């Protein structure tokens, strides 16, 4: 049965879009039939991170409003044939999305795919609530930083009240994805530790993604990091997170501090502090 996953955070810039692309690709690399859906109407970016920005013809709003068929708006990934993208509209505003239209599209996507990964916009407005509305589970993307943790707590509250599952009295499974994690800074006491965040938010941990050059390089190139640098620590962390989403029991490990490059080794901490 198809699983609808919302990738959400409340706060912007924590890594929702990057994580949507990487988790979607990781699941597809594992043989699942996956679509990633951009709900950030007016400020789309999933197309850019996926490297499909030149090929967008129709978008979510076109399909919601009946100007295009779903099949016409879906963009198949050039590297993975079982990975598709449904882009958001760049020129419309969030109000172009209607609850009925989104419900219809999610229903159609459920027939075609095993996994529907919804990239939520930041904030708690219409776009964000519509992105989570039909979810079967949620990935809460959080940085080990006070405002991100606070906003995640707010989003968890919304997941437990505003979603269809919540309204039907069902439990909404929520998973914490800790991104941009800097083990070295956390161990120096400059950043919240994994256990601090887990204790505060008290939802199960899906994975820890280290702050990584490979993630930046992947978005520069327009490829999910699991495709751009599959052997990198970040890609392996996403691949494992994808397996945990599927229900596999894999121990979460705190990533080791990223090995410094030649420059970093020569100039050490002074160069970055």
């Amino acid at each position, binding site marked *: 049965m198809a699983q609808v996953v919302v990738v959400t955070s409340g706060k912007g810039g924590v890594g929702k879009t990057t994580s949507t692309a990487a988790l979607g690709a990781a699941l597809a690399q594992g043989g699942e039939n996956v679509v990633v859906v951009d709900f950030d109407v007016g400020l789309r970016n999933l197309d850019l991170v996926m490297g499909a*920005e030149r090929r967008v013809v129709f978008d979510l709003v076109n399909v919601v409003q009946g100007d295009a068929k779903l099949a016409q708006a879906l963009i198949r990934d050039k590297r993975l044939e079982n990975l598709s993208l449904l882009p958001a509209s760049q020129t419309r505003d969030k109000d172009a999305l209607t609850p009925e239209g989104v419900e219809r599209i999610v229903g159609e996507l459920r027939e075609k795919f095993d996994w529907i990964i919804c990239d939520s916009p930041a904030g708690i407005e219409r776009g964000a609530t519509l992105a989570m509305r039909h979810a079967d589970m949620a990935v809460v993307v959080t940085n080990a930083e006070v405002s991100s943790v606070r906003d995640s707590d707010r989003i968890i509250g919304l997941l437990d009240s505003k979603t269809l599952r919540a309204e039907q009295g069902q439990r909404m499974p929520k998973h914490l994805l800790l991104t941009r994690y800097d083990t070295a800074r956390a161990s120096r006491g400059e950043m919240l530790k994994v256990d601090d965040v887990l204790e505060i938010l008290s939802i199960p941990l899906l994975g820890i993604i280290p702050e990584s050059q490979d993630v930046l390089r992947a978005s520069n*190139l327009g490829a999910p990091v699991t495709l751009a640098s599959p052997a990198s620590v970040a890609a392996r962390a996403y691949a494992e997170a994808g397996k945990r989403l599927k229900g596999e029991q894999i121990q979460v490990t705190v990533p080791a501090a990223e090995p410094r490059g030649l420059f970093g080794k020569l100039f050490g901490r002074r160069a970055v502090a």
Partner: protein
Amino acid sequence: MNLRALFRRRDSAPVARERLQVLLAHERSAVGGSDLIAVLQEEILAVIARHVSVDRDKVQIKLDRGDPVSTLEIDVEVPSLLRAAAASGGGRSPEAALRR
């Protein structure tokens, strides 16, 4: 990290720059919510629809926004074309005219 990886890592920023330049050039040129390619596509389909019945489900549109050229590929399935041509008694081959 070996030497090759060290050099390879440096070349992602120029790729990002080039991708953004192409994308933003297209987005900035968009007028009234639709860019030239979208207008072309609508009008081409409207012209075809004037002559044959077009099932919108059977239309495949592929786009590649590039620099210096973009390509727009419109693939229209026209099942009733031969019958329509036979009915009107036309000697031309509209199929050939429509072929990309």
